[in-house]
C-alpha cells in the first residue's frame, strides 16, 4: 500500500492518471479485432493466391464465361424450357426450379403429416398416442439418405414395368417409370369455367367479410365454410356442366417404351418427396406436440369454464398461442427440408445440386465458381427464411410488462 491510501482526511482530489495504453480495455479490444481481421484477410489471401496460382499454372479455365455456353446435356425434368442446346445458365435455373418444386411439395406434405402426428401424440387414445410416438422415434433416428434409398431402391424398384402397369382410378397409371396422371386439356369455353372459379373465390371473400361484419354488429354467425365451399366448387361446376363439359383429358398411353401423354411424375421425385416429407414430418410432429403442450393447461380450462366448446377453445385460445411457439422452429424445419432436398443427387432427381453442382461442375470443371454459386443460392434461401422469421417473431411476440 502506498502512503496516499493512508492519508488522513479528504485531501485535494487528483484526477487519476490515465492508464497506459496497454491496460485500457478499448485498446486491447481494438488490437484483438485488428489481429482477427489481419488473420482473416491473410487467410483468404493465401487461399485466393493458391487457387489462382493452381489454376493459372495448370491452365485451368476460370471465371463465369461458361454461364452462356451451350450445356450439351439433357435434364429429365424441367419446369422451364430446356434441352441440350440450352446454356449452363438455363441449366442453373432448371435445377433451381426443380429444387423449389420439391421443397414446396415437401413442405405441404410434411406439414400436413407432421400436424396430424403431432396432435395424435397428444391424443387421449393411448394406442394412437403410442403409434404416433413410434412413428416419430423410428423416422427421426434413421439417416435421411437411408430413407431415400429405401423408398427409391427398395420400394419403388418393386413396381411393375410399363407393360404391366398398375391401373389406378381416373385414368392414372403407376409403374417403375413413375406415376402418370391424366393431363387436363382445356377446350373452347373452358375460360368461362375459370372465370366462374375466380368469381367464386372473390364472392367467398366477400361473404367472409360480410359475415364478419354481421357478427361484429349483431353477434349472429353465418356458415361461412359451407357457403365458401359451395361458391368455389358449385359455381364453376355449374358453368362447366352448362357449357357441355369443355375440358378434355389427355390420358397416358403406352407407346413404345414408355407411357406418353398425361402428366408424368418421376419415381425420383416421388421417392424424394415421400422421403423428405415423412422424415421432416417426424420433426414437425415433435414441434407441434411441444407447441400445443406448451400452452398451459389453465388456458384450456379457463376457456372451457367460460363455456367455449372444445372446437372453439382450440381455435380461439390454444392454436393462436401454440402457433407462436410452433412457427419459428417450423420455419427452420422448412429450411432444413430445402437443404435436405440436395440429397436428390443420390437418387437421380435433377435438383439444383444434382444439375448444377453435379453435372455443370463436372462438364465445366470449374469447381470454385460452381460451388461458390451453389452456396450463394442456399444462403439466399436461408436469408429470406430468417428475414421472414424475424418479421414474424416481431409481430407475434407477446406483450410483456
Amino acid at each position, binding site marked *: 500500500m502506498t502512503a496516499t491510501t493512508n492519508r488522513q482526511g479528504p485531501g485535494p482530489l487528483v484526477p487519476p492518471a490515465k492508464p497506459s495504453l496497454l491496460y485500457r480495455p478499448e485498446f486491447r479490444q481494438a488490437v484483438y479485432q485488428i489481429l482477427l481481421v489481419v488473420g482473416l484477410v491473410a487467410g483468404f489471401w493465401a487461399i485466393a493466391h493458391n487457387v489462382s496460382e493452381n489454376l493459372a499454372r495448370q491452365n485451368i479455365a476460370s471465371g463465369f464465361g461458361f454461364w452462356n455456353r451451350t450445356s450439351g446435356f439433357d435434364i429429365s425434368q424441367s419446369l422451364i424450357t430446356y434441352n441440350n442446346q440450352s446454356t449452363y445458365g438455363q441449366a442453373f435455373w432448371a435445377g433451381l426450379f426443380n429444387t423449389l418444386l420439391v421443397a414446396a411439395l415437401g413442405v405441404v406434405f410434411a406439414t400436413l403429416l407432421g400436424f396430424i402426428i403431432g396432435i395424435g401424440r397428444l391424443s387421449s387414445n393411448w394406442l394412437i398416442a403410442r403409434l404416433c410416438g413410434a412413428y416419430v422415434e423410428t423416422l427421426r433416428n434413421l439417416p435421411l439418405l437411408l430413407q431415400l434409398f429405401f423408398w427409391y431402391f427398395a420400394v419403388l424398384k418393386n413396381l411393375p414395368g410399363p407393360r404391366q402397369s398398375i391401373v389406378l382410378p381416373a385414368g392414372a397409371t403407376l409403374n417403375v417409370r413413375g406415376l402418370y396422371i391424366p393431363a387436363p386439356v382445356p377446350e373452347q369455353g373452358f375460360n368461362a369455367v375459370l372465370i366462374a372459379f375466380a368469381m367464386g373465390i372473390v364472392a367467398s371473400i366477400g361473404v367472409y367479410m360480410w359475415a364478419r361484419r354481421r357478427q361484429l354488429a349483431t353477434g349472429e354467425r353465418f356458415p361461412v365454410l359451407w357457403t365458401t365451399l359451395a361458391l368455389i366448387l358449385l359455381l364453376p361446376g355449374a358453368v362447366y356442366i352448362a357449357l357441355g363439359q369443355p375440358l378434355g383429358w389427355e390420358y397416358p398411353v403406352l407407346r413404345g417404351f414408355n407411357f406418353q401423354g398425361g402428366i408424368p411424375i418421376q419415381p425420383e421425385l416421388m421417392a424424394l418427396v415421400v422421403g423428405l416429407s415423412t422424415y421432416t414430418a417426424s420433426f414437425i410432429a415433435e414441434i407441434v406436440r411441444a407447441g400445443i403442450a406448451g400452452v398451459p393447461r389453465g388456458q384450456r380450462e379457463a376457456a372451457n369454464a367460460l*363455456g367455449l366448446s372444445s372446437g372453439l377453445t382450440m381455435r380461439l385460445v390454444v392454436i393462436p398461442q401454440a402457433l407462436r411457439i410452433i412457427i419459428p422452429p417450423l420455419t427452420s424445419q422448412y429450411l432444413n427440408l430445402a437443404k435436405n432436398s440436395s440429397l436428390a443427387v443420390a437418387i437421380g432427381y435433377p435438383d439444383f445440386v444434382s444439375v448444377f453442382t453435379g453435372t455443370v461442375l463436372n462438364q465445366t470443371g470449374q469447381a470454385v465458381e460452381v460451388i461458390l454459386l451453389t452456396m450463394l443460392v442456399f444462403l439466399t434461401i436461408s436469408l429470406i427464411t430468417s428475414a421472414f422469421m424475424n418479421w414474424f417473431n416481431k409481430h407475434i411476440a407477446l406483450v410483456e410488462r
Partner: protein
Amino acid sequence: MADTSRQQARRAHGASGGILLNGVHKWYGEFHVLKDINLTVKEGERIVICGPSGSGKSTLIRCINRLEEHQQGQIIVDGIELTNDLRNIDKIRAEVGMVFQSFNLFPHLTILDNLCLAPIWVKKMSRAEAEKTARMYLERVKIPEQALKYPGQLSGGQQQRVAIARALCMNPNIMLFDEPTSALDPEMIKEVLDVMIELANSGMTMMCVTHEMAFARSVADRVIFMDRGEIVEMAPPDEFFSNPKSDRTKHFLSQILNH
C-alpha cells in the same frame, strides 16, 4: 331445454338456481379424492371452503363445472344435472363463472378481447354489445383504463380482477373461486378481495376456496372445512370460527390463524 322444463327440473331436484351434490365420489386412479360429498347450495348463498392442501377442495369446485369428472353420485347445477352430455356441460359452463388461482387470462388477446371472447362466441352477442358489457365490468372491478393492454402488462392483482370481470361478462348465476388470492403479493390481495366482497354483497351465488379467513368471516353464509377428501365440518362462520366441533378443524384453524 326449454325454460319450463328447466323449472320442472329445478323443482324436482329441489335446487333452484343453486348447486346440489349428492353422494359424490371421485378417484384419481386408485386415489380416493372426494368421498361421499353431500352439499346443497341455495341460490344467493355464499360458501367458503377451506382445508389443508390436498384435501380435495379444489377438485370439488372443479367438479362443479366439469373441469374434473366425478365417478359416482349426482351433481346438479342450476337445475341441470352434469352428465357426459356435452350440451349440458356447455350450458352449465355458460351459467357458472370461474376464477382460477393463476388467473389464466389469454396472453395473446387484449384485456377487452379477453372479456369479449366468450360473450361473442358463446352468447353470440354483437361486438358492440359485448364491448359495452366488458367495459361495464371493467369499471366495476375498477380498471377501465387497462382495456386495450395485454395481460402481460398488468400486475397480478389487476389480472385477477380482469379474470373476475371476464367471468362476470357471461352473466353467470354462480361464481366459483379457486384460491383466487394465493398467487398474489399481500398488497394486491386486498384489491381482489374488495371486488369479491362487492360481488358477494350483490347477491351472487358463490363458492370460494380460500384461506382468507377474514373474508370468510365477513361474507360467507357457511364455511366448509374439508380434509382428506371429505367434508369434516360445515357451519355458519361465527359458529365455525368460535366453536369448531372437530379436532381436525381446531388443529387447522390454530395453524392458519396463528401463523
